[in-house]
């Protein structure tokens, strides 16, 4: 999973937390609490959160639950294969009309996005719970299986 710019780093952390919770990782609310107000304000401003990729459908339930808790954010999943997803991101980024916030696709595709500087470094508290040797060194996405 990788994150694409815009003002959603914090929102992403929540989504990731939800994702990790679904995967059985423990959640730690203290990290997000201090930034919650700022995060909610930014999320309200943008109003929409889009997760894209071949695995986007697997996040539907998490997105639905998240949407219930934060009804002012419209949660969307764009399902497409890796090639379609990363090329769409590239085209949209080039034209300044990026509509995708988070990518959930194969690590090959995410690596290409990382090399093209199209995903940001990810920081969230649970990252340290994932064995470092399984993750890319640049930290621009994390992988799980």
């Amino acid at each position, binding site marked *: 999973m990788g994150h694409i710019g815009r003002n959603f780093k914090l929102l992403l952390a929540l989504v990731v937390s939800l994702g990790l919770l679904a995967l059985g990782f423990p959640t730690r609310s203290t990290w997000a609490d201090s930034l919650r107000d700022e995060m909610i304000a930014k999320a309200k401003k943008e109003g929409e959160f889009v997760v894209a990729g071949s695995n986007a459908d697997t996040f539907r339930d998490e997105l639905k639950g998240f949407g219930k808790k934060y009804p002012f954010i419209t949660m969307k999943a764009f399902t497409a294969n890796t090639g379609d997803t990363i090329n769409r991101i590239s085209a949209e980024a080039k*034209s300044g009309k990026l509509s995708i916030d988070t990518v959930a696709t194969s690590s090959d595709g995410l690596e290409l996005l990382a090399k093209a500087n199209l995903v940001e470094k990810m920081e969230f508290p649970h990252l340290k719970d994932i064995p470092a040797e399984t993750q890319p060194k640049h930290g621009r996405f994390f992988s799980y299986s």
Partner: protein
Amino acid sequence: MGVSSVILESAGSTTVAVLLGGILAFLTERTDLRFRHFIPAIVMVPLIMPSVVKGIAWIFLLSPRIGLLNQAWRGLGFQGPLLSAYSMPAMIWVEGISMSTLSFLLIGATIRRMDPTLEEAAFGSGASTLKVLARVTLPLLVPGLAGVILLLFIRGIESFEVPMLLGFNSRIFVFSTNIYYSLRGTFPPDYGLGFAYSMTLVVLTVGALLLYQKTLSHSERYTVVSGKGYRPRLIMLGPWRYTAWAFVGFYAFIGVLLPLFILVWSSLLPFYRAPSMKALSVASFANYVKVVSAGDFWLVLKNTAILTGVTSVGIMFVAVLASWFIHRTTIRGRKLLDFLMFLPYAVSGMAIGVAFMILFLSFDNPLYNTIWIIVLAYMVNYLPIGSRFTHAAVVQIHKELEEAAWASGAGFWRTLRVIWVPLLIPALVNGALYVGILTMKVLSIAVLLYGPDSTVLSVYLWRVWDAGNPGESAALSVLLVFVLGTLTLLARRLARGSDVFKEA
């Protein structure tokens, strides 16, 4: 890369389509074969199967290891597959069957336009049936056939779904898949290459279309349209009727029954297995339930309904206004409008999709990633077809009728409501249904333009297949064929033998 493949694939599939469609049309129109009036109904069935669905069905049939036909082939003791689905001959075969309906309709119309008196004269001079066929019938058909071949060749060049499903993984590229690959298969996307392929494709199709129109104008020198109202002599098949029936049976089996059967069979299984009683014991409707209860299925249906509804109604509205402008006014520029409306016919759906994607990414607009950009692109793509219906209908309404309305004091809108709308309704309904069916079937435009909330049925089917769910893809295909079949039946009932609908 692509030029030789596209010519080979297009020429090959045109040959298959002309042979299948041509023989069936000849049997229907010119022979005494019993029950021949059932042939058009059989040939129309492939029309309701979108190319994606046909491609999926033929993968189930010709997959090198598990394909039904290849398993049967091995069962006969042969080594290796009969034909691999992922090969050029398979692409030619599937595309050929796909185009055989159009070939049947066009060649049938060409045969019907022939003047039978020339044949009668030959028979009267004592020529045998074979001699008349070779010396009179075939030479008369040649100009019309040349036009049909060119039109089918253009369709072959533009095809996307079959080359994508069967050729992409085995690296057999044609123009449309090359465009898709340069925009979606390489990273970062190579827009220059995509545009170059798109423009070459446009030049090729425009060239072929100009040649087609030239062929049509030349064919008028053969003046074969007759005002005399008698039927041409039917050829007595004699013992050849068995061969003819075997051919019709072969087509019905291979072009209609087998693909439909394998789709229904695969849709009932949790994973694909060759038909057997053992496999039947695990058959269920689970794939249908899974498809219908999937998160975004109902949104996909809603999008598809909006796309087909708005596109078909929008096209017929624009087309009827344009037809009126072109045929009923003397305003300057109407010829240019006619030309502009026909222009998209020469541009493949894939090229239109690319143009719309780039255009709507280049400026601020609320349409990008919504269903409305797809609606607009399909409207541009099918406007030439919609206008064929309205041009024909407008020309048939005599000017005296509207002159009478005006003389009686009716204004423009009242004339439109009282004279035009009632007379145009049949053509408008036929045109809207035909365009709607096409919109629902074709993948190439929507696959480039869909967003998170604007997936339509053709893209959804492609996505499910691409994600490796053959059973669910088969279930979706069966549902799609059912919907398209119902719409086609409705359209044909409303068309009541309209040649425009049949040949569009």
